[in-house]
């Protein structure tokens, strides 16, 4: 939460470098166009697509990683909530109810992750791996392994509509990120999460309900995944149980790590994760614009991520900035 400047600095620097490259390589990159009462352009696409998946997932993933855990199930939970929302709408349920049902189920499954980890004592990577497999299966079960198209203008509007000229998902994520950041700063929840990740045993002996903290962050991560899944389904007016969220958990982990939150837990930075997600999305679109075949795109993507992670590495960082190291004397 104490987002030290250098944490957000590296992903933002990488982002700036990438934008500079685009300014030189593709002239239309920064072009914005006002049409039918809304903005169009590559920058808008980056924000829109970045908001829909990586940023949303990264919000939940940041808190999970801050407790020293990881959530591999978010991609599958996206598929589950998308499937629930689509089938509910097709069954004639009001949109609000359909969306709420999707979010509720994803949150509940996140809660199950938390219970398995905090109460049954499973390793986070195992518990959420099980949920990753089971969640995908559940999505298949709900849809009969078929793509579920729907025709519902309200639900489609969530991902495709615009407010004040900007895509709706951008507002959804900004509001959720704002509320989350505000709530963590104005309650002690942020401190409890960081304390749990830094030294769970000591935190428990200081009176923190570390089990409750862990359950809460996995439930929150499930909620974020659920919201992201609804938006993905809304985007193409169909829930595709096999493809929604596929391998997107890795994007979320990348965004969080690039944003400077260590996988070992402890200090976290929501702003850093959001910046990391933006970086990831910009990179994806840049490669697309440069006509890099989608099958090859992961390679340059991986290289940029590696570069940002190396910049965060304390060992390399010490060479650049001679930051004081802990002096155990």
């Amino acid at each position, binding site marked *: 939460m104490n987002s030290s400047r250098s944490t957000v600095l590296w992903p933002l620097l990488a982002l700036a470098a990438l934008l500079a490259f685009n300014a030189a390589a593709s002239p239309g990159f920064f072009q914005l166009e006002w049409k039918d009462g809304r903005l169009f352009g590559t920058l808008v696409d980056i924000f829109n697509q970045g908001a829909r998946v990586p940023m949303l997932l990264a919000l939940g993933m940041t808190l999970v990683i801050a407790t020293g855990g990881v959530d591999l199930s978010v991609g599958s939970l996206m598929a589950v909530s998308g499937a629930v929302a689509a089938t509910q709408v097709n069954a004639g349920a009001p949109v609000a109810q359909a969306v709420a049902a999707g979010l509720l189920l994803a949150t509940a499954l996140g809660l199950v992750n938390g219970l398995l980890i905090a109460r049954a004592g499973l390793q986070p990577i195992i518990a959420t791996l099980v949920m990753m497999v089971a969640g995908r299966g559940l999505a298949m079960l709900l849809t009969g392994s078929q793509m579920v198209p729907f025709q519902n203008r309200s639900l489609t509007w969530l991902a495709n509509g615009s407010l004040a000229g900007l895509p709706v998902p951008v507002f959804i994520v900004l509001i959720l990120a704002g509320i989350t950041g505000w709530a963590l700063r104005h309650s*002690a929840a942020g*401190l*409890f999460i960081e304390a749990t990740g830094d030294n769970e045993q000591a935190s428990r*002996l*200081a*009176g923190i309900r570390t089990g409750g903290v862990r359950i809460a962050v996995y439930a929150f991560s499930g909620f974020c995944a659920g919201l992201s899944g609804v938006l993905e389904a809304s985007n193409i007016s169909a829930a595709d149980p096999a493809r929604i969220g596929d391998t997107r958990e890795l994007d979320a982990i990348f965004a969080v790590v690039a944003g400077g939150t260590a996988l070992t837990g402890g200090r976290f930075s929501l702003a850093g994760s959001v910046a990391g997600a933006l970086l990831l999305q910009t990179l994806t679109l840049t490669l697309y614009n440069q006509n890099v075949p989608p099958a090859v795109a992961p390679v340059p993507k991986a290289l940029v991520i590696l570069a940002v992670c190396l910049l965060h590495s304390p060992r390399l960082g010490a060479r650049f900035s001679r930051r004081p190291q*802990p*002096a*155990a*004397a």
Partner: protein
Amino acid sequence: MSELLQLDGIVKCFGAFTALKGVSFQLRAGEIHALMGENGAGKSTLIKVLTGVHQADGGTMAVAGRSIRPANPRDAESAGISTVYQEVNLLPNLSLAENILMGRQPMRGPFIRHAEGKRRARAALARLGLEADVTAPLGSFPVAVQQMTAIARALDQQARVLILDEPTSSLDAKEVEELFTVMRRLRSEGMGIVFISHFLDQIYAVSDRITILRDGSGVGTWEAAALSRLALVSHMIGKEAPGLAGPTVRAEAGGTEAIRVEFLARRGTVGPLSFSVMAGEATGLAGLLGSGRTETARMLFGIDPATSGAVMAGGKALALHSPRAAMAAGFAFCSEDRKAEGILPSLSVRENIVLALQASRGALRRVPRAGQDALAVRFIKALNIRTRGPDTPIGMLSGGNQQKCLLARWMAVQPRLLILDEPTRGVDVGAKAEIELLCAELRRAGMSILFISAELEEVVRNCSRVVVLRDRQQAAVLDGPAITLQTIMETVAAA
């Protein structure tokens, strides 16, 4: 006299902080040389420079006249400098022989010559007067044997300089004596030994010379016989020792009862125990290592809850089934294991201090930032915590200052009973005295303290009532004038 190890003007900086400001140190062959200093004086840093963990930013080092500049621990070992750390850092699942020879196993082509390895391991242990099954895993032996194994490893490396960094902190009295015998034997064989310990008795029992560091500089080197204890302590802290030279700060017995423990026991662990804790007094828990001191503390704080008996306060039984419940009952517990159960290393001093208070208020009633700052600043000043500021990560502080932060954490919740398990372990003499004075102040303010310490002198100095434990049972409760070293030791030793 030949200088085996010669350090001149060693400088080491961490960022803007200078940990060593030109330290010089000489070690002769065939001497035991104690290195003394408060926490933060630069002992550990000096050792780490010497063993290649850190690289010096200035100054020179030489072993037997040959200049060295170790870039890593391996360099230092091949220059003949070996270190045995406080926490034995060997591999518990490997055998003694493998631990002793790790990285230097005798080979024939690509194959390890196991028989030759075992012979060499046995020979190294024999030099220490120890016979043991070298094929058994290290972890199956007591800590003392593990420590000997670490020393045997140094011998097998043909070490000429042996650094013992607080080797006695987890040994009992008999094992310490055995270690000293080994140290004296190695000294007579011409080895130079650097000895670090917080126990003054041990320093004087084996050391030939003593070098004192303070604030990253060398204060001086003395023959041990020519340096009185009081002089040693005042050199270390740079002033007259408070509390040590003065009268004891014990309160008189006879206050009101704050808490009564009735037949409290945990099946298979400790008890039954029955004693009273008076308001504004310190009750001591004394006994040998393994007598159930820490187990009692953990039982009272609800970490390993009691299975029978009761704890009464004001005529009502307290629920102590979890740490949170114990906190709600007004208990606080400072663990002996600062690293694993105390500090949150990457969080700030402020956050570490406010943690328990915040936890007892719950997540929704956050202590406002201004209040947190005020709290941290108040305790930093009151407890004389040496930190660059309230927002420095606590992991960067020295052990004694970390301990004071943990005391502050629990003082902030104003408990009625403060359980202190080895509050002065691994803490230098100056901080020890400060912590004892602090306890006295808390008692005057009406707080009750359960004081656990392996150092009986400390128990005698601080407590107006002592519960003596023996074999996880209550052996006796001593009161007021009955509390002397003699009576406690007699009770502990009684058959």
